[in-house]
């Protein structure tokens, strides 16, 4: 049975091991944003043995490229982007201590295996609900790669940011389970 849980980042191994697919989680604290271009840069730094602009240990990365903030607002619309494009980079980041990823859509088996091995989870946020989700983001500042515009790495402060556990540390997958429950024929 799914449960509603409130968690504050950074996340510990203990925090994520308690989570099961279908759990509704309200995240508080800090999330870092990153999508295609930022992931490529992080990966290249790791490959060259250089220091990353953010310490990923215990952190949660949100795959998002927000719209520009209107005056007086911390951020524009900010729903998740499709996650599979980050699949080539995620296992390495998980190995370095990343505890959570937020996006939409399926992950590769390599990412699911890495989450199981190194204890991390993949959360889904509702794709296309960018205006709604933005209300849970209280502060946003660019911490790396401002030249990437919407793809820059931002540090977000969030309150009760709503997500659903899609892949847990046991290798389970909400997409597989959910679809098998409703598929006919």
């Amino acid at each position: 049975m799914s449960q509603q849980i409130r968690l504050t980042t950074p996340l510990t191994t203990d925090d994520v091991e308690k989570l099961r697919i279908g759990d509704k989680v309200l995240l508080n604290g800090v999330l870092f944003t990153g999508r295609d271009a930022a992931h490529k840069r992080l990966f290249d730094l790791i490959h060259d043995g250089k220091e990353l602009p953010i310490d990923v240990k215990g952190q949660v990365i949100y795959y998002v490229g927000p719209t520009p903030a209107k005056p007086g607002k911390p951020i524009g619309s900010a729903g998740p982007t499709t996650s599979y494009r980050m699949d080539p980079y995620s296992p390495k980041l998980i190995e370095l201590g990343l505890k959570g990823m937020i996006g939409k859509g399926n992950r590769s088996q390599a990412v699911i295996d890495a989450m199981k091995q190194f204890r991390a989870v993949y959360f889904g946020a509702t794709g296309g609900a960018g205006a709604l989700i933005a209300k849970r983001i209280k502060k946003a500042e660019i911490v790396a790669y401002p030249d990437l515009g919407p793809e820059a790495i931002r540090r977000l402060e969030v309150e009760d940011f709503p997500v659903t556990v899609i892949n847990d540390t046991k290798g389970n997958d909400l997409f597989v389970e959910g679809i098998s429950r409703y598929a006919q024929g």
Partner: protein
Amino acid sequence: MMIREVSTQEIIKVVKDLCIDANYNLGTDVLAAFDQAIENEKSETAREVLRELKENARIAREEKAPICQDCGLAVVFMEIGQDVHITGGDLKAAINEGVRQGYEEGYLRKSACNPITRKNTGDNTPAIIHLEIVPGDKIKLIVAPKGGGSENMSRVTMLTPAAGMEGVKDFVVNRVKESGSNPCPPTIIGIGVGGTFERSAMLAKKALLRTLGERNPDPELANIEKEIFARIEKLGIGPMGYGGTTTSLDVFLEMEPCHIASLPVAVNIQCHAARHKEAVI
């Protein structure tokens, strides 16, 4: 026959306003489809997602915010009456200027970039422009911002003629199945059958401009739309892929003659943020 003059200044203004309107205000047909889906959907998790989408559309409309952070590439369809004379400069430059102004003034995300270096063009241009000359002295403009997530799940294939309509149906249903949660279901499926390689894709794209619930006027094709819709419903993918009975909101099929050797089929997947707004000048 009188020639009617339309200035590029007017075109810039209309394109700008349509870009903003399309990104802030979800169509009433999509909102009605959410309501119907909330009523029919069997999964409580799925109903919750659908309620969130409805609430998101309300916030976007009231706060003048983009429905989705992916404000898309600006796809612009323009039907130009053959008795119109466009004055004041380059037409395509005017459309791009309208997009530039709309995406800047509307605080919309600029998503256009170089395909290889990935460097953002900075103003969401160039727009994807489809021009057509039609009878009359009016200009019809449609702006249909298209997000990357659902566009990435779209495909064109060249079937053998022997595959027939069964082959078309199987290709479409398999494409939706393989796309799973990626294109932000509940989706709208545009299908183009026939023409050439590129024409089939164009038919699929144009099919997405229909109002939800509007069937192909050919009763046989309308039945095929319904049949494909029923098969997609059985996939169980549901809103956001969390499982459920609402996987697509509608299926639109357009068909044209093709080469005796070919059977081109295109599937253009549209996410639930199905944005398109039009104006006539």
